[in-house]
């Protein structure tokens, strides 16, 4: 819809004020949380002065660092596995239609449709039935499943926008299939792959429900650790850790979107 916003006919009563309220509602909690993480006061909600102390306390907490390390190991492994599978799948899906295509697409986005709690308990029961011990490995396997669609969608979108004549030209110029992929497709595709990988990474890093059920005692991730802290009470350390998680997510997503806008 292209409209002249200055035309009063397009001004409907309450639209602008509701939109303003919407953005305030969306960002107020985020801003408040980040601001309070720098608050000197132990009571956490009364502002008495600026301090970085809570970040120092949080970053010198060994349990929390171990949880963060687990989270990163899981997120990196799941991202690598999911991105490879998703890139191959996107390339397979891009060359015209085939029989059973809609079934395959449905399978690729299935993890987005099933409620998280259902995925969590079904996966838990599956590992128990197979007799696999719950731990980092089971969490990585489970995370890879829901990372695949998040990596697949941006890569697929990127491939859709690519001119097939480029690969055909490479083939005409005697490049074999591998060479055409490495020298033509991959350089054009990498922004999609990188953006998909970053989204997978952040989705895995932020996941709580699935890790909580599939992780067992040995695989405490950062969100599980934060959940435990919140259960005990609201403290300035929780504010600091939470603010760090928020900032990491926002940074990653912003970079991913910027990469995705790189032109062909």
């Amino acid at each position, binding site marked *: *819809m292209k409209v002249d916003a200055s035309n009063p006919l397009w001004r409907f009563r309450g639209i602008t004020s509701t939109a303003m309220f919407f953005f305030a509602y969306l960002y107020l909690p985020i801003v408040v949380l980040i601001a309070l993480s720098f608050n000197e006061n132990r009571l956490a909600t009364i502002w008495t002065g600026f301090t970085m102390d809570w970040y120092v306390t949080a970053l010198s907490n060994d349990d929390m660092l171990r949880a963060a390390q687990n989270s990163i190991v899981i997120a990196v492994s799941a991202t690598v596995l999911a991105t490879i599978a998703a890139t191959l799948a996107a390339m397979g899906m891009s060359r015209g239609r085939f029989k059973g295509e809609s079934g395959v697409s449905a399978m690729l986005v299935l*993890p987005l449709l099933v409620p998280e709690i*259902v995925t969590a308990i079904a996966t838990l029961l*599956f590992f128990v039935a197979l007799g696999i011990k719950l731990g980092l490995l089971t969490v990585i396997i489970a995370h890879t499943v829901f990372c695949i669609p998040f990596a697949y969608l941006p890569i697929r979108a990127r491939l859709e926008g690519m001119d097939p004549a480029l690969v055909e030209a490479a083939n005409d110029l005697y490049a074999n299939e591998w060479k055409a992929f490495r020298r033509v497709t991959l350089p054009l595709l990498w922004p999609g792959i990188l953006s998909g990988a970053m989204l997978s990474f952040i989705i895995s890093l932020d996941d709580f429900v699935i890790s909580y059920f599939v992780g067992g005692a040995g695989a405490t991730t950062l969100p599980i650790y*934060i*959940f435990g802290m919140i259960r005990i009470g609201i403290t300035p350390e*929780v504010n600091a850790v*939470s603010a760090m998680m928020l900032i990491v997510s926002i940074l990653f997503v912003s970079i991913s979107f910027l990469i995705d806008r790189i032109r062909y």
Partner: protein
Amino acid sequence: MGNIIRSKRFWLVAPAVVYIGFFMAVPLLQMAYVSMLERGDYGGVNWGVFSMDAYISFIFERDLMDNLVVNTDYLQIFARSFGLSAMTTVFALLLGFPTAFYISTQPQSRRNFLIFLVTIPFWTNILVRNYAWMLLLRNGGLIDGALNWMGIETGGLDVLYTPYAVSIGLTYTYLPFMVLPIYASLEKLDHRLVEAAFDLGADKRRAMTRVILPLAAPGIAAGCILVFIPCLGAYVTPELLGGGKFMMIANLIGSQFGAARNWPLGAGLGFVLLALVLISMMVYSFKFKSLPEESR
């Protein structure tokens, strides 16, 4: 030649499809199977021993004389989940439609930025977002403090750990899903149709209700589905903002794998939730063919 290409494509798609099939589709089928097994005496299940207890205990319980009596506890949790999800969908629509409309009337460059702002919270940690609302809503918290400062004596806000808090948190969590599809359908709307309505003497209310809203209906329906369904399966928000006192379906399912130790019941409830989700998706796609394309 055709066969080679086809088989090559098969091998490209296979890893992802086999992976999701083995680690998601198979576990879901197995979950349906577990729901029909007998519960183990000390948690777990008795593999291979069939029983419909999970589905019976959803509505009935055994009293001391071993008679079945109706127990509405679980039904109440389902009703509460539906009620809260419906309320959340209405709130999200009331806030989301005007916002999507506002964004669609902005110049192109600003639109992209605003849509980006709408999506950012979705990518941040759900625990952290709900925790932020605990800071705002608790007694002596920010909203309470602000009201007192303005001279409104609240005597403690008493909102945290109530269904209201859960509803605020759910709306906050799923709001972006309402805005994006509505925006996608408004963006495609031909503005000349609206101008024609004005030319033909329609006032703003009529142009909105007779032209804009009907044309945006597929987006509105998609938004409602995308908010309602994840709401029904929400776990974190009722856990944190409801303080564990106001269970929704997902918390009930989760508790069967914790303290309650009734895996078949948990699996059965999970299966029911999954069926509800898939049925609503099918009803939607039957009515509107396909989701409006996601826009960036």
